[in-house]
């Protein structure tokens, strides 16, 4: 598997000493600018679903409480039961725990439904997420999995991918 990582200098990180989770939460909006979701995706609200990471859920919910993504109000949901992800209908699935049982199948279901599957850490790439944050000291980087990219029905702009570096 070839991994490409995108190195992002955290905006104003040094000045504001912002937490990595908060930064990751903000970057969801930045990623969304380079995404093209399938046409059958709901267009009245931007849905972010968080899998197995309540802390991250709280942070994301707080981040987008008064902010919009793609001019849509943001709805954040924490997934906890099997039945909740049988018929996914969201824009972003934030995978907060890559070691959860049957996470791979859940990821594939969401990728097939057209949601961007974003991993909380680099190990998630091994479980099949499309994009994943990678902690690298002062920098926050992210990488993508080429196979997952092909599998995922969301369309990601080359503009985003061209920043990735081969690790």
């Amino acid at each position, binding site marked *: 598997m070839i991994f490409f990582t995108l*190195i*992002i200098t955290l905006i104003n990180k040094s000045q504001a000493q912002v937490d990595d989770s908060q930064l990751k939460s903000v970057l969801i909006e930045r990623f969304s*600018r380079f995404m093209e979701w399938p046409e059958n995706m709901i267009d009245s609200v931007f849905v972010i679903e968080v899998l197995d990471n309540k802390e991250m859920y709280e942070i994301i919910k707080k981040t987008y409480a008064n902010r919009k993504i793609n001019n849509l109000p943001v709805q954040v949901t924490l997934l906890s039961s099997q039945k909740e992800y049988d018929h996914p209908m969201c824009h972003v699935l934030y995978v907060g725990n890559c070691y959860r049982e049957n996470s791979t199948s859940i990821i594939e279901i969401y990728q097939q439904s057209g949601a961007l599957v974003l991993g909380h850490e680099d190990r998630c790439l091994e479980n099949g997420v499309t994009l994943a944050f990678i902690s690298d000291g002062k920098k926050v980087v992210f990488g993508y999995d080429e196979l997952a990219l092909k599998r995922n029905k969301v369309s990601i702009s080359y*503009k985003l991918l*061209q*920043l990735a570096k081969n690790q």
Partner: protein
Amino acid sequence: MNLNFYNISIRNKLIIVIQLVTITALLVSFLSYFIFTSERDKQNLINRMEITAKLVGEYAVSPLVFGDAEGGTEIITRLKSMPEIEEAYILDDDKDIFASYVNDSSSHEYHPFNPNNSRVEDLSIWDDAYFHILQKITYKGDDYGSIYLVVSLRPFKERLINDLRVLFINMLLIIGISWVLSVIIQQYISKPIKKLVKTTNEIVQEGNYDIRVKNQGTDEIGQLYASYNKMLERIKLEKEQQQKYSKALEVSERNYRTIFENSIVGIFNIDIKSGKLLQANERFYEILKLDPSRLEQYTIDQFLSKKERVIFLKTIEREGQIENFEINHKGDIWISFSGKRIKGQNSIDGVIQDITDRKKNYLELKKVNFELDNFVYHASHDLRSPLRSILGLTNLLKHDKPSENGIELIQRIENSILRLDNLVTDLLTFSKNSRTKRDIEEIDFKALMEESLEGVPYEYKGDIEVSVEINDKNIFKGDKTRISVIINNLLVNAHKYQSSKRDKKHIHIKIKTNKKDMQFIISDNGEGISEENQERIFDMFYRASESSDGSGLGLYIVKNVVDTLGGRIYLTSTVDKGTTFEVIIPNNQSI
């Protein structure tokens, strides 16, 4: 040195023309090509830079979104592969420099962007040394910043100069080739023309029209050669013809000159208006005793008096010519002038003859004739007296009772004397006709005829029936004495030559007058006159009839008198049938 184009040889003209056309065509085409290529290159550069700016802008979106200045620098540094881009800048949406690239060769003359100018839009600026292009970086309708490129025009200009250099070298090469080709090609046109000029010069110098130019083709020059040769042929023929004419003219002129110079009559040419003598031969000067060297000074006044000149010129003006105009020149020379006005010219060509000797002879003859007439008249007149005396004496002898033989002799003497008296009377009449002037008076033809009929001798009258028809309503004026001589002679002849075989003898007389003339016709049924005698009937002393006892002068006198009066006489006669005389005498009514 005259640099007139017309003085340049045809060879050089053709070379110059070809070169001018070539250079003009090259200049126009090369200039067009240069302008076109420079504009095309400029547009290509603009397009290329706009695309480059757009591409860089595309790639710069994500670094700008994520604030990845390193990524932006990395992207913009890739422009290093385009050396003409001296400086490149990625500006964020606050117009701050996000990433930049400056070429090593950049002079750093240009500030990349004025941050205070917040109204910067997409722009392209072309100055002397640089091309500036500024493009906004947008993605999905949002502005993320700008890309600003400073492009050096040095490579562009170097390329243009290189193009110009290549074009100039090409132009020199083409002109050189064109020069060589024009020198070679012009020969095909100039050589035939030079050949024609050379041939023409030879013909002019040698006057030989047998020379021909050799035709080599059927193009315009070939056609010109053919026409030139035809022209030479025609000139040759015309020259030969002209030589013939010249020779004939020369002969004619020589003949004329010979006639003119050796003529026994004087030949002259006079201007009508000025009367100046224009030309004359030697004989002319000789006759008039003039000096040929003073030709220009002579006018018609030198040989005609004022009166003669008026007559001479008026006759010429009226009739176009004058014949035998006789003048007496300087008292002792008689000259006859004849001349004719030349059609279309105001001059008279004429001849003069010295008629002094002829004139003298004529005057002498006239004098002798007059003396002869005088002698005949006086001789005839003087002869009649003794004849009349003899006749008187013979009459006396008849009364002395001569023997029968004596009476016969006396009668013969008397007849001879009467014939002699008739002859003398006729001679007197003839002489009188020549000597006396015409005496014009109004004539009463009835009275005249009565007198004439009474005058017919008794022995001729016999049993002849005479009828007279006179129509003289128009007054006729003429010489009564001479007309009565005509009528009397013809009337006596009509009586005298009656045929003895004829039972009824008659004479018919008809007289008719009009304004123009008088017609007198006398017809008889006498013995007539044979054709051979008719021709000589008016000759002097000619007798047509054997029975005639006349003098042979009667009809001669009649013809003479008719001529004197300006009339005409006609004769028609048949032997044994009769004779008719018709006399026409002009009416002198106006006198």
